[in-house]
């Protein structure tokens, strides 16, 4: 066991090396632990319904359809062969907007949107987002609420 004091000069490089190694080890462990904590806090699953879900076959939505699915908070629009999924969560404080002749209207605080979700009145600060629509391998239409797309982008079935 090396004792500090005598023969300092001879052992100094060795001591420095060991000190450096120890600090690398300890500091590295601390960094790893800290990063592990951050990874820990970000949930890998949540208990809310999945953001990506299927709504049915294309045949279930004949051209001209404009229906609201309240549970999923999305409005499915089909014009011809093009399909879109517009969010029905009002961008003001989160109520579910209803479909109106002129587009959408929020019963809570009076926000108004046009057919494409653009704000036409009321306190809503942003337009209604459009969600990505794809075709799943089993032939059903899938809406992905995690991905928003440019309003006006339709998916062709």
């Amino acid at each position, binding site marked *: *066991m*090396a004792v500090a004091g005598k023969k300092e000069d001879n052992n100094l490089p060795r*001591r420095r090396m*060991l*000190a450096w*190694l*120890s*600090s*690398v*080890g*300890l500091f*590295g*462990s601390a960094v*790893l*632990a800290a*990063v*592990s904590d951050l*990874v820990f806090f970000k949930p*890998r*699953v949540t*208990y*809310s*319904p*999945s953001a990506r*879900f*299927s709504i049915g*076959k294309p045949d279930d939505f004949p051209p001209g359809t404009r229906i609201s699915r309240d549970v999923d908070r999305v409005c499915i629009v089909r014009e011809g062969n093009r399909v879109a999924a517009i969010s029905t969560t009002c961008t003001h404080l989160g109520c579910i907007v209803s479909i109106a002749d002129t587009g959408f209207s929020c019963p809570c605080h009076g926000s108004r949107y046009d057919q494409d979700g653009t704000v036409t009145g009321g306190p809503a600060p942003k337009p209604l987002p459009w969600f990505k629509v*794809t075709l*799943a*391998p*089993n*032939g059903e239409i899938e809406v992905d609420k995690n991905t928003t797309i440019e309003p006006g982008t339709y998916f062709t079935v």
Partner: protein
Amino acid sequence: MRLPLAIASFVVLIVHGVVFYEQFFHRWERHQTAYFEQARSMAQNPAEKAALEARSPQIEQVIVTNFGDTRVDRCTTCHLAADDPRFANMGSPLKTHSYSAAMGDVFRNGHWERRHKFSDFGCTVCHDGQGRGLDNFHSHGEDEFWPDPLLGYVTQTTWRKDFAPHLKGEEYMEANCAQCHTQEDFAGTPTVNRGRKLFYGMNCYGCHKIDGMSEGTLGPDLTEAGKKFKVDYLWESVVEPRANLATSFMPKFNLPEADVRALVIFLKSRRGVNFAETSLDRYKAHVANVAVVIPPGTANEKAGEQLLNDRACTACHKLHDKDGGIAPDLTYEGMIRDNEWLTDHFKNPRSRIPDSIMPSFRFPVEDFDRLSTYLASLKTPPPAMPPAETYKTLCERCHGEKGDGNGKVAWYIDPSPRDFTKEGFMNSKPRARFVESIKSGVPGTSMPPWGRILGAEQIDGTLAYVLQKFTKEPGKEPKPRNVPDKNPVATSAASITHGEQLFLQRCTGCHGRKADGKGPNSLDILPHPRNLRNTAFVDTTTDRRFFESILYGVQGTAMPAWIDYGFSRNDVGDILNFIRSINVQKPRSQQYASK
């Protein structure tokens, strides 16, 4: 110290690294990556390819709330291709879940449409298993602590090895189909249907209650058997009834394997809930099932017959072509018992046979009358038969085909049927007593008065048959003992007290402190010590017989000759007074005063 510190610091860094690494790169991620690659090669346009490129492994789950408790099913994390028709020919886990018309799937426009969508049903509702698990061991339910392993696919290590091969097979899943599809003839659950028929056909329903199906009270309630137990326990309970409860009197049925399988699958389907019903529906069904509807104006006798069938009396008794194998034959009941006896016995079997195991059913009083009337109507005598046939028809059920008291229902009767092979006993009693027992029965026991069916000649003939065939050395008539005919000791408080003292000193080891024959030694003795509170028996037994039995013992049984232990006649007289004093019969009107 610096060197050890440096080394330790490095070691701890490496350990941290290992811990960190363990939490990434799981097996399910490899499965998912394999799926992405395979799907990319199958992709039909660049947009699809790009979307797959962008996908990275993540935990997939379906949260199902429609079926009772919230279920979180993460099976599709590994089984990612379950709903991708292109993977039908791949190996597990990336294999498409099968489609079939039997499951309601429809083939339309060139592809299958799934009836039971995963987003609505999840996976575990049909397959069991542990939805929240993310590795094989836990998600498939191989963990012995998980109550619902994958039905029909997984056996747990704690299960009996001899049962394990029987517990696999796709038809086990029918148990879960039946949670919603409860109709009796549903095409998708043939094994459950078979099991249900067996449940009724083998008289299980007489002892076991299943809500909405039966009302039996002798065995455990099976309404939630499938929810509470795994298939190995159910299998064992059917093939070895005494494996988990040594005192169970469930018969061992020795069914073929296919029948046991059907029964087990049927029982596994009993989860206490039917997800297709509302609780209001269930309540209505329960009420409908419990009430036995007797059309108004039905004669008591007819009503009694209907009740007998609906109440599953033949789950224990024998009548006509049905035989439960646990209780006496009712075929000649009308001849050997009268209406009053029957009604008393129905209301409380122990009022006539104190150690009977027949439950006290809580039927309405009219039902008792109807049942009694019906049984009393069973007055067709047996045809004339030789003694051997007579024995077989009337006696064998209790006394056994070897006459050793081990008949089919002997195990369930107390006092046990007499063992005729015990020469010691048979040769120590006068024949007249046997004739009397057969003719008038033994009150307080299950031995009925056969004299109401058999004539004197038939009785003699049968007795001779018994003595010759079973006792083997029928002996000489014994000499009558020197005992008084009537108790010489007068009944008095002092006598009774002394008798009680002696009883408590000497007799309780076998006859019990309550004189009910359930003393600590009684379990090891056959025939069992007499229940001295069996009033019907005690009242019809002569003083002489008591004196004889106590002073000189009962050969062929464990009752010793107490004269050898210093009992005097007066002692016995006192004991007899005591015994009689605890058997003071209440008048019939008082017996049911509390009703």
